[in-house]
């Protein structure tokens, strides 16, 4: 990657190397999968954990954050996994949906709705099993994510997860929730991967929830959405992990022609979180909508990083990211739109806005456009501000107490992004999380 000599290996880096020595013989997959892991591990040995002198990680120094890396949990039986799942809470409560359950990085078929999904043309396999016969193809990632340290770290250790294959033209009658639950009793590391293959003309709404965890937990998941021609995929990712957790979550999206993807992310939990999205247009006339809602307080650090690769002509991308930062917390937004030389008629629009609720709240914004084609429309905007005192006075002058007025104004700030979600189930779940976040303020 570069010739800069590395500094001293950190304790966490030593632990990662030791974990790989101990585990790699037993990790699933045939020879080609092992080779992928070896290659990823070699890159890790060279670069270590990503840190602030690596441009992509400038504002989110994972090496500094990770003082220690806990071991990976042994696979639990379904009863134990169900208890962890129940303790982590049910974000979607009464919503009628299919559930696929991953606990501490391991997929639990026995807790998942496989039969009903299969009847609708959606087949689920444990990743461990799929790696044995589908091989390293499952680890292939878009070029823009190829060098990403977190994706590499996931490939090194990924032992399970799931592959969801949706048949051509299948339109699932209910949303599919993929729960990623972490044990709250003792810290573990996880490195699961979810691969979704949405067939041509299929339609699905995925609800990915990241819940649970405890002080020292380190979750590093990858969700890889491969969307065939004409398919419509909505993926709503809601992260509400416990305060002491370190969360790295990556969404990879590859879109064929005429497909439409809406990727919605809410980052509310974890002490340190990095949410990454990499979207690649592989076919023309596709559209991607990326929405993000981030709310941080206390000493939290939450990063939203996205890269959209217009590799082909005639695709549209829209990004709208809202961040609310309180106390001493830090928010980060990095967004890059790449337009390749022949990707004419690209339309890419990115907006990021942040609301700082305290004197010490910190927000880093880095919007980037890399445009190599000449007939394109691209724009980006970034704003950062505080609650408008005139608006606050107006509400108070009508009798609304200050705290309630502030809550109304924060909701108003987020409303534009919430309205864009469209899906009622997701809107309700997100609004509930937003309200409970706001009411938790002493």
């Amino acid at each position, binding site marked *: 990657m570069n010739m800069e000599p590395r500094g001293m290996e950190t304790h966490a880096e030593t632990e990662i190397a030791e974990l790989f020595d101990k585990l790699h013989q037993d990790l699933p997959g045939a020879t080609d999968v092992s080779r992928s892991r070896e290659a990823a591990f070699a890159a890790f040995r060279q670069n270590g954990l990503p840190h602030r002198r690596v441009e992509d990680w400038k504002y989110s120094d994972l090496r500094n954050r990770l003082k220690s890396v806990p071991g990976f949990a042994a696979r639990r039986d379904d009863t134990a996994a169900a208890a962890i799942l129940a303790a982590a809470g049910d974000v979607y409560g009464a919503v009628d949906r299919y559930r696929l359950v991953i606990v501490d990085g391991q997929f639990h078929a026995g807790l998942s709705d496989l039969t009903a999904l299969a009847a609708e043309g959606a087949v689920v396999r444990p990743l461990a099993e799929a790696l044995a016969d589908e091989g390293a193809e499952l680890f292939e990632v878009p070029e823009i994510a190829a060098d990403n340290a977190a994706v590499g770290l996931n490939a090194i250790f990924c032992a399970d997860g799931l592959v969801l294959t949706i048949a051509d033209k299948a339109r699932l009658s209910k949303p599919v929730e993929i729960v990623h639950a972490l044990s709250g009793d003792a810290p573990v590391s996880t490195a699961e991967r979810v691969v979704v293959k949405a067939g041509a003309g299929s339609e699905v709404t995925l609800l990915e929830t990241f819940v649970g965890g405890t002080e020292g937990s380190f979750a590093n998941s990858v969700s890889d959405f491969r969307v065939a021609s004409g398919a419509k995929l909505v993926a709503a990712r809601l992260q509400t992990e416990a305060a002491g957790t370190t969360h790295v979550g990556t969404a990879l999206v590859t879109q064929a022609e005429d497909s439409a993807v809406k990727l919605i992310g809410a980052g509310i939990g974890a002490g340190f979180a990095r949410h990454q999205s990499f979207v690649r247009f592989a076919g023309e006339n596709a559209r991607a909508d990326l929405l993000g809602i981030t709310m941080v307080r206390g000493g939290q650090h939450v990063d939203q990083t996205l890269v959209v690769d217009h590799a082909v002509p005639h695709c549209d991308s829209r990004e709208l990211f809202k961040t609310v930062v309180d106390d001493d917390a830090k928010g980060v937004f990095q967004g890059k739109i790449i337009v390749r030389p022949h990707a004419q008629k690209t339309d890419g629009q990115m907006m990021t806005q942040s609301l700082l609720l305290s004197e010490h709240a910190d927000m880093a914004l880095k919007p980037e456009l890399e445009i190599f084609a000449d007939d394109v429309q691209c724009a980006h905007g970034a704003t950062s501000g505080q609650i408008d005192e005139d608006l606050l*006075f107006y509400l108070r002058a009508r009798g609304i107490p200050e705290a309630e007025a502030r809550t109304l104004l924060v909701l108003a700030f987020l409303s534009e992004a919430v309205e864009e979600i469209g899906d009622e189930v997701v809107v309700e779940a997100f609004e509930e999380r937003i309200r409970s976040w706001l009411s938790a303020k002493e």
Partner: protein
Amino acid sequence: MLEIKNLHARIADDGAEILRGIDLTVKPGEVHAIMGPNGSGKSTLSYILAGKEDYEVTEGDILFNGESILEMAPEERASAGVFLAFQYPIEIPGVATMTFLKTAMNAQRKARGEEELSTPEFMRRVKDKAGELQVTMDMLKRPLNVGFSGGEKKRAEILQMALLEPSLCVLDETDSGLDIDALRVVADGVNKLRSPERSSIVITHYQRLLDHIVPDVVHVLSKGRIVKTGGKELALELEKNGYAEFVGAAA
């Protein structure tokens, strides 16, 4: 109802003195008009009554129903019965008008120890008053004041006033930006609220509004002081001769 005693106030940021000793007593049921040239302190007085923190009272007091309100937060004053109709009603994107109205009405009721309104009762009240003020359902469905014309904003202010039923209404240049038809609708709305228990302070530049909302007392404000007080005929005199005579007198 309201007693303003020797009120001095300045802008908190730069210390510029705006009000230089205002004395004003408003009895229950009375309508007082305050007129005066630009920069005389009319809007400042209305903001100070409502509790805006940009201003600092350096001397004097404001008694509302016999008690000082200087230490009260804006929301406490509102719940006690003070209402300011803003000269420039503020647009709040993302806050639905109906949500805002319900939140405000119930917040005031809660502060006074009253039951919150049920949704049907709330809807009934809004529909009744909105009809009278020609505030359409379409307007009520929009975010607060967003995309409203100047006249629509002023009608929406009076709608809020009618729903919140204050005992002291302060109207800050409610006539600005209104054509003659809109002026009549707004004035009718205000007149409907006149009662022996409710008082109003109407701040305006022009006599025109006072043809519709006929005041009991007219004051001329200049350089932060009331320089002349009279009956409704004083407004006519001002319309004819301008402020020059009084402004000069205060200098």
